[in-house]
Each structure stands twice: as C-alpha cells, then as structure tokens.
C-alpha cells in the first residue's frame, strides 16, 4: 500500500472506530508492518497540529484515537449533545408549566410551583428544551419562556398540537388561577 493511501485508510479507521485502535490492530487491518503504521501516524499527528485542523490524534488506553482539540471545546460544547441523564423532577414540573402556559415568566412559574426554579430553568435552557422569547410588558420587564423544537423531540411529540389543545389549557389555567387566588390559604 502506498503511503498516501495508508494515511487515508488510517484516517478512515480512526474516524469510524468508536474506541482507540492499537498500532498492532491497525497494522493487521491494513496488512502493513507496525513500524510503518507508527511512522504514518506520527506524520498524521503533525498534520493535525496545524491550526486549521479541528481534531488531534491522542494515545489513550494503549491505542490511538481522534478527538476534537481542547482549544475548541467552547464551540463543541455549543452543540449540546443530548445527554442520557433524565430530567430532574423540578425541571420536569417547570417544563410542564411552560409547555402548557407558554409564554410564561419565571415569577409565574414560581407562583404555581411555590418554590424558586432558577436551577430548573437553567437546566431547561441549557438543554434547549425552553428558550427566552421576548419580555413581558410588566414591571421589571421579565423574560418570557416558551418550549423549543428540542422539547418536542425529547418527548417524541410531532408538534405542540400533539399535547392537548392550548386553548383548552389556557382556559383551564385561567379558571384554575381564579380558583387558586380565592382559595389559597
């Protein structure tokens, strides 16, 4: 195999493999001797050092792997890759209120939940399940919150209409609010 092709093959292998690959394994797959694999990998690592490249070759767990450059973590972080961790109950309750009463301010959410929800709201914003949508024309001009496309994806909903019709909820919520106001102890 020519060096240029070997380099291409190694890149493809490192790219597609979920786990680090040892030089021996790479040599076995490419049917090239280990020394040559190491040589080409070293050249490859040098190329990746160029600041127009976004990934680098690391040696981990007895093998080689491609990773994004730490200096670019800020941007990669903005991708906000979905996490496996489920939402906390506080976040879930806050989300339910936003989903059915949107657009809604933080004070209004806290009024319903009876507790502060800064942390829950921060989580929901970070996970892009809700977003700010302008400000309410009220004292202090508080932010209004609405759900996002990601919210629908997270719950596997096609659109907000997949939830019970919002008018019904608004009406119900309005009635509830009247009730709450009168009967709260």
């Amino acid at each position, binding site marked *: 195999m020519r060096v240029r092709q070997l380099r291409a093959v190694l890149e*493809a292998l490192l*790219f*597609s*493999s*979920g*786990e680090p690959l040892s030089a021996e394994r790479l040599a076995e797959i490419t049917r090239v001797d280990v020394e040559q694999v190491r040589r080409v990998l070293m050249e490859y690592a040098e190329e990746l050092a160029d600041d127009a490249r976004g990934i680098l070759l690391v040696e981990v767990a007895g093998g080689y*792997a491609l990773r994004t450059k730490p200096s670019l973590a800020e941007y990669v972080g903005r991708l906000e*890759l*979905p*996490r*496996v*961790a*489920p*939402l906390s*109950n506080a976040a*879930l*309750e806050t989300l*339910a209120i936003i989903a*059915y009463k949107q657009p809604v301010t933080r004070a209004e959410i806290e009024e319903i939940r*009876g507790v502060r929800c800064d942390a829950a709201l921060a989580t929901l914003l970070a996970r892009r399940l809700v977003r700010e949508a302008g400000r309410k024309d009220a004292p202090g001009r508080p932010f209004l919150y609405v759900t996002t496309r990601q919210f629908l994806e997270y*719950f*596997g*909903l*096609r659109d907000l209409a*997949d*939830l*019970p019709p919002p008018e*019904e*909820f608004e009406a*119900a*919520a309005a*009635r*509830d609010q009247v*009730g*709450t106001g009168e*009967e709260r102890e």
Partner: protein
Amino acid sequence: MSENSAYTVSLPVFEGPLDLLLHLIDEQELDIYDIPIAQITEQYLAYVRTLRELDLEMAGEFLVMAATLMEIKARMLLPSPSAEDGAGEEAEDADPREELVRRLVEYRRFKALAQRLHDLERQHMLTYPRVPQADGEQVSDWVPVEGVSLLQLVCAFRKVLESIEDEHVAEVIREKVTVTQRMRQIEYLLDRGEGCLTFVRLFRGDRTRLEVVITFLALLELIRLGRVRCEQKRAFGEIRIFRARGGDSHGEG
C-alpha cells in the same frame, strides 16, 4: 412443516400475489396490457397448489387473487351484457382485466422504486459514520413506548381530557399535586394490587385538566425512566400500563 418442504429450495418466494403475477408476466415477456388471462390463471393456480401441497404458509391474499383471476377469466368468456342495458357506450368496452392491470402497473412502479432504494442503501452502507465515543457523547436513542406509540397515548389522553366536564373544574379546589407525587401514586397503584392499570383508570381521580396533564406527564416520565410500559392488544383497544420488569434503577444518570 411436512417432509415435503425439502423441495421448497427451488421455489421462488414472492412478496404477494401481485409480485407472483408480475413474475409470470415478465418471465414470459407478456404484454401487461393484454394479459392472456386463461394462461396466467392456470400458472398462478399451479403455483398456489404447489404451495399447498408443500404445506407452506401462504398469505390469504394469494387465494383472494386466485378467485379474482377466475372471475376475470369467466367474464372474458361471457358475451358483453351491456348492449342490453344500453348503459352508455363507454362502459360496454370495459375490459374485465382493467382493474388488475392498473394494480399491476402501479405495483411494478413501486417495485422499481424499492429497487432504487435498495441500491441507495447498498451504496450508502459503503460509507461509515463516526461512532460516538462512550465518554458522555452517546446519543440517547430513547424509544418512548414499547408496543404503543406515543401518538396512540396522546390520542387516548385527549379522550380523557374531553371527558372532563367543565362544571367540575369550576368547583374544584386545586390541590398542589406534583408530577413527582403522581409518579409515586401510579407506582403505588401498580405495586399494590393488579400490577396492571388501564389507561382510563389512571385518570379516574383527576378532576381538572391540569391534574390530567400532571398525570399524563407522570406517566410519560415513568415510561421514559423505564419503570412502566404500555401495551395495547389490538388497534384502538384499551391501553394497559404495567410495571416494567427490573426497570427500577434504569433511568438514573
């Protein structure tokens, strides 16, 4: 399966009666718009008989098509009756094969498209994506409900909502029920007795829309955490909620 099934090796498998008919037509290079119906019927029936003799499973549709073919064949033999009806000249010339031809042409079109998709699939499988790393980048592939689609759940949910009567809403003193509390209640109900709840039963105590919503969100969350699962025996049947087997510690992260 009978011993005869050893012979099945040579028997081509067809996706359905239309697939078999197309095969017969293509194989003999027949004109799809002028199918020699007697000949095709004979061959078709021979194939169906073979399947039966070999004791192979055969979709009921094969028999339906056999009947259709025989009917067309019979109508082709009859003199055109429409002359007596006087029911328009156009209708007189209606070919008994027309509907079958239309279906065959349409099916053939989609078979060709399926082949194109197959080519695309094969081509695309030559390229590999990057497999996300195990360290926290894993994209969760959450399938919301096992056996019941979320849409079915939501539809059921809507029905419950519609059944909530407005007069109740007015008089209700809103209790502060949270999703967490409701999740616990549902789990308690499941653990206490039946081990199974109907979807409708789940909402029995709810009197306001907000309560219904909270119950529904609690259910969604329990499903998502893998603590309960839903089942629907037949389409539009009752949705039942079960404790998921060993799913308790499932959802923490």
